[in-house]
């Protein structure tokens, strides 16, 4: 157990617990975009900024999703400086992805100016990398990641081409905070639009429902050494 001061109150953090997790446990709301409990935090979006100091040292601003509680830490999640910084981050993100509902929701919470202060970029992605972390750490496919750097930075398949290791599971579609990874599906194929990855579907031998991309079946067999006929019928018919 680690004792820290959170918004003026002494609280106990678990060993290795981040300030974001601790605050959430204490009922304190911190806005986040790139955080997901299933994957390692990388502090990419900067929405979750807090102010902290050690042993009465200088106060620093940092991302709470990557800040691990240490004895004697003093943290502010609600100070003027914190809100000012979060607001700037949000304004920059809104300039990058204008009109995004999730960002507008955060803006309403924080009174960030809706009239843009920075030139609009009309992108749809904030380059937080959550999709890639989930694809690697949860799915295990490592199909997408960052390419280039600086102003050229982008996320997608290797060399920004259609990712051949993508199994079309849709995990990235589900976690993207900007909701910019779309999935289209019909009886024959499933397409992850943002990655330009189209996969033929496998139909259940019992009910005929297209329940899984063929390629996903092949990968599952390779990864988990599943029996060959395990994926001939869908989960519903297997019950």
């Amino acid at each position: 157990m680690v004792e820290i001061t959170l918004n003026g109150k002494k609280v106990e953090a678990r060993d290795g617990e981040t300030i974001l997790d601790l605050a959430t446990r204490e009922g304190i709301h911190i806005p986040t975009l790139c955080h997901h409990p299933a994957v390692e935090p990388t502090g990419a979006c900067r929405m979750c900024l807090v102010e902290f100091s050690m042993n009465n040292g200088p106060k620093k601003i940092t991302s709470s999703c990557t800040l691990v509680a240490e004895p004697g830490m003093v943290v502010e999640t609600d100070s003027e400086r914190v809100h000012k910084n979060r607001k700037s981050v949000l304004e920059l993100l809104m300039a990058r992805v204008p009109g995004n509902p999730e960002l507008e929701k955060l803006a309403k919470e924080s009174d960030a100016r809706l009239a843009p202060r920075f030139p609009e970029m009309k992108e749809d992605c904030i380059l937080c990398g959550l999709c890639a972390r989930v694809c690697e750490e949860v799915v295990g496919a490592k199909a997408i990641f960052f390419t280039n750097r600086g102003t050229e930075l982008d996320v997608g398949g290797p060399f920004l081409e259609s990712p051949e290791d993508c199994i079309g599971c849709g995990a990235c579609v589900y976690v993207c905070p900007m909701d910019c990874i779309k999935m289209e599906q019909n009886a024959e194929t499933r397409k992850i639009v943002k990655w330009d990855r189209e996969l033929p579907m496998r139909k259940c031998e019992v009910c005929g429902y297209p329940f899984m991309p063929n390629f996903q079946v092949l990968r599952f067999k390779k990864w988990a050494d599943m029996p060959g006929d395990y994926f001939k019928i869908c989960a519903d018919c297997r019950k």
Partner: protein
Amino acid sequence: MVDLTAVDKIIEGYHGDKTAILAILQDIQAVYNYLPREAMMRVVEKLQVSTTQVSSLATFFHAFSLKPRGKNIVTVCMGTACHVRGAPRVLDEIERQMGVKNQETTPDGLFTVETVNCVGACALGPLVMVNGNYHGNIATSEVTEVLDQYRKPAGQA
């Protein structure tokens, strides 16, 4: 098709060490003058790493080129010190003489023009490197002379 014998040799030299990707890519570029896609895919296959890992590294560092480059690499320093001493004019002059832009290769395959941000020899600025040879305090009027040194076939210099 690119001959990959050299790539296999390089990878063997690192005994399949997954953490040596960067060194392997550098060695590959030293041999081929750029990173051929086939060579990178061989690294993926032999080291059993993901294609995304190799592609993110290969595109992160400006020192790597994914396109074939010329016989001679002309690198113009655009760092702060060189910049204030006239590097943009030197680059303009080189691009004009070559008829290609930054990051491009002349049609005869002799030269590729590139830029870097400081090579740590600021006192010599403006600075142009050709194949790693430093040409310091270069004036736009000296560009022709420097480039001509590399136009001559070997042995005739």
